[in-house]
């Protein structure tokens, strides 16, 4: 079973945190069950689209902005296709990035750069590295198997007045993070915060998921921040014009649309 879990930022980045309004379950839930519940709720919508405004903050406080359009389509069994179109700034305008995720196979990725006018299939390697200058990694954007982690319910806590389960997720095989501590809202199972630790066990990043909006009965955090405490940089993402289940056509997730633009 796969779950877009340790990289919480990208839960939103590609899958838009499709968490349904759900009453808190009994306090006897195990950490695994909480994670599983949250994961099950991720695949509520069959498709989604959104506009994204990203701000890169350097360690000196300088800001760079990017605007994107994002489209996601899910097929069940953790199969999905997603495509991102970059709209600004000018030097990346027209760039598009397509990902086909398949539970049983490696993700397939294609990149279209207008300067080359060619669609290039790219290797899904280098997953620990930054995705286009953000504090998100390719690993964050990909999908992981929920069973690759063991979970421990540490405590209950509050984040900005909201009650949360605090769960420690530890990978059975350390690749990119040694552990992730995530605060999951008890009310709707949406992550509120996540602390990510690097392979040396050092605190590396903090993800913040705020401004939850109910869109078509789906609770969605629309403001996400990823702060890298080691290098002092941050990426801030604001989502708008979120639409679920609009019946996105299959051919949006093809080379045809990558070159044509959205």
């Amino acid at each position, binding site marked *: 079973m796969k779950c877009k879990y340790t990289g919480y930022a990208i839960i939103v980045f590609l899958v838009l945190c499709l968490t349904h309004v759900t009453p808190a379950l009994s306090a006897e839930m195990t950490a695994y069950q909480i994670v599983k519940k949250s994961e099950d709720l991720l695949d509520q919508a069959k498709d989604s689209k959104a506009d994204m405004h990203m701000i890169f903050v350097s360690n000196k406080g300088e800001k*760079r902005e990017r605007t994107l359009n994002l489209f996601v389509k899910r097929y069940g069994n953790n199969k999905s296709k997603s495509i991102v179109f970059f709209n600004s*700034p*000018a030097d990346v305008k027209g760039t598009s990035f397509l990902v086909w995720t398949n539970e049983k196979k490696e993700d397939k990725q294609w990149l279209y750069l207008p300067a080359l006018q060619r*669609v*290039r*299939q790219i*290797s899904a390697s280098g997953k620990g590295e*930054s995705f286009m200058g953000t504090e998100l990694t390719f690993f964050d954007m990909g999908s992981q198997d929920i069973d690759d982690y063991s979970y421990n319910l540490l405590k209950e806590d509050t984040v900005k007045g909201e009650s949360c389960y605090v769960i420690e997720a530890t990978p059975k095989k350390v690749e990119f993070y040694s552990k992730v501590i995530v605060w999951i809202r008890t009310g709707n199972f949406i992550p509120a915060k996540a602390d990510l630790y690097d392979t040396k066990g050092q605190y590396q990043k903090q993800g913040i998921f705020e401004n939850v909006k109910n869109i078509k009965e789906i609770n969605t955090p629309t403001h996400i921040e990823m702060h890298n405490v080691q290098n002092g940089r941050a990426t801030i993402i604001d989502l708008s014009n979120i639409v679920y289940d609009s019946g996105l056509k299959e051919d949006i997730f093809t080379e045809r649309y990558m070159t044509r633009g959205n």
Partner: protein
Amino acid sequence: MLFWIGLTFLEAKAFQYEGDLGKLSLAGYLEGKAIYAFDRDTPRENPSEKLGVELKASSSSWLSSKIFLQAVDDGKVIDPDNKALFNQFDRIYQDKNPYVNVNEAYLDIYTGKVDFRLGVQKFAWGRLDEINPTDNLNTMDLTEGGINDEIERKIGVPSLKINMYSDMADVELAWVPVYVPYRLPQPDERWFPKVLKPPEVIKTDTMVGNIPVNTSYQDIDLPAHTVGNSEMGVRVSKYIGGWDLSCSYFTGYDPMPLTDAPVDLTVKLLNPLALDYRINTQVTMVPEIHRMDVFGFDFTTTMSSFTVRGEYAYFKNKYYNQKIDPVLEQLVTKSRQDEIYKEFMTKYLASGGRDNVQVFHIDPHIPIQEDSMKYGLGLDYIYGDTTLSVQFIQELIPNFNADKPVYFNKNGLNTMLTFLFKQFFLQNTMEFNLRTVYEVEFQDFIIKPSLKYNFTDNLQGTIGILFISGKYDDSLFGQFKDNDEMFAKLRCSF
């Protein structure tokens, strides 16, 4: 002038409208470039400015259009003669400054499974970087020596493209009704190919000594605008089990420069009694075009952490330029001179001694036909902000005629190794780029390191160095080996 026009645009910033009437957007850039030539005796290149303006409009989900114009104040053009404003689609030597280039201008019509694109456009076939044997629909603007970015040197051609999509395969049909020739700088400009310059003298071991050569350049004589003279291509693509596969066919004119060099030998009898005569040579470089057929195949896939790309093309009826020096030397060997002199004397005597200056027209037929194939394999490794890419590209002429050596191919082979290293820093605001190309048979190479920095989201500066070296003066890169330079570019986007 362009700078101020550009500033006006920049002040206006990108314009975008989205409403009941559809979408309209205006964007572009202003770029300034300056070079420092290490060899100060090479032709100069003044600072240049380029204003690119892109207008996109769509009135519905099935109809859109794009116009991309570039207004250029070109520092490379010396003493331009052509006063036309727009670059012309029927000339090799544009010879104008400033000018406006219609980079792309087309109309898109999208239907369910078929897309149409009509207008001036650029095609991008093949999977290799920069060098694509299967990509022959566009000719190249070689006024910067062909070392600028591929998309910049590619000339948009008026054409029709039809893309058909189905579960079976995607098919692209291209029709270019009128051949658009490549573009070259003027012979006295910085990036004029030395291989298109005949020698200043033809060496002989006869009593005539070295024969001086005068050279003139003609522009191209295009074929009649008929359907039979149009160009056509078809490319079928399919994604199968992790492999992006394509096969293609092109029939049309070779996009690379081919030049015949008809020669007028002027024989002047200086002293009939002493049989003392002189020969002068006038070589006219006449562009030729030849139709060819190209059968191609290409693929991309990923293996482990690598992207693997490959491309193959078989060229039927391809022509190559013979090396001009030995051809000219063959025209004035001792035995040829004897024949010419004999013919000269016959006419001279028949004219009663009046025809003491006679012109002999000889066409040596420089381009020769040799079928060939070109293939390449590329390997990319991307790790976060680092990209490494290597390519092996080889051209093979199976029935190479050693008695007729051609440019850029040695004994039937030309092997290129390319290397690209790209590293982003500072959250993608700084990019170091190192691009090299090495030709194995000719031992020549280009090394181009550059550093790009985004001062803001819209202001970008690049500095770099271009090193070119080669063992021979007539190899692809060796002909430009004196053109080492340092460059600086500043681009402001809006």
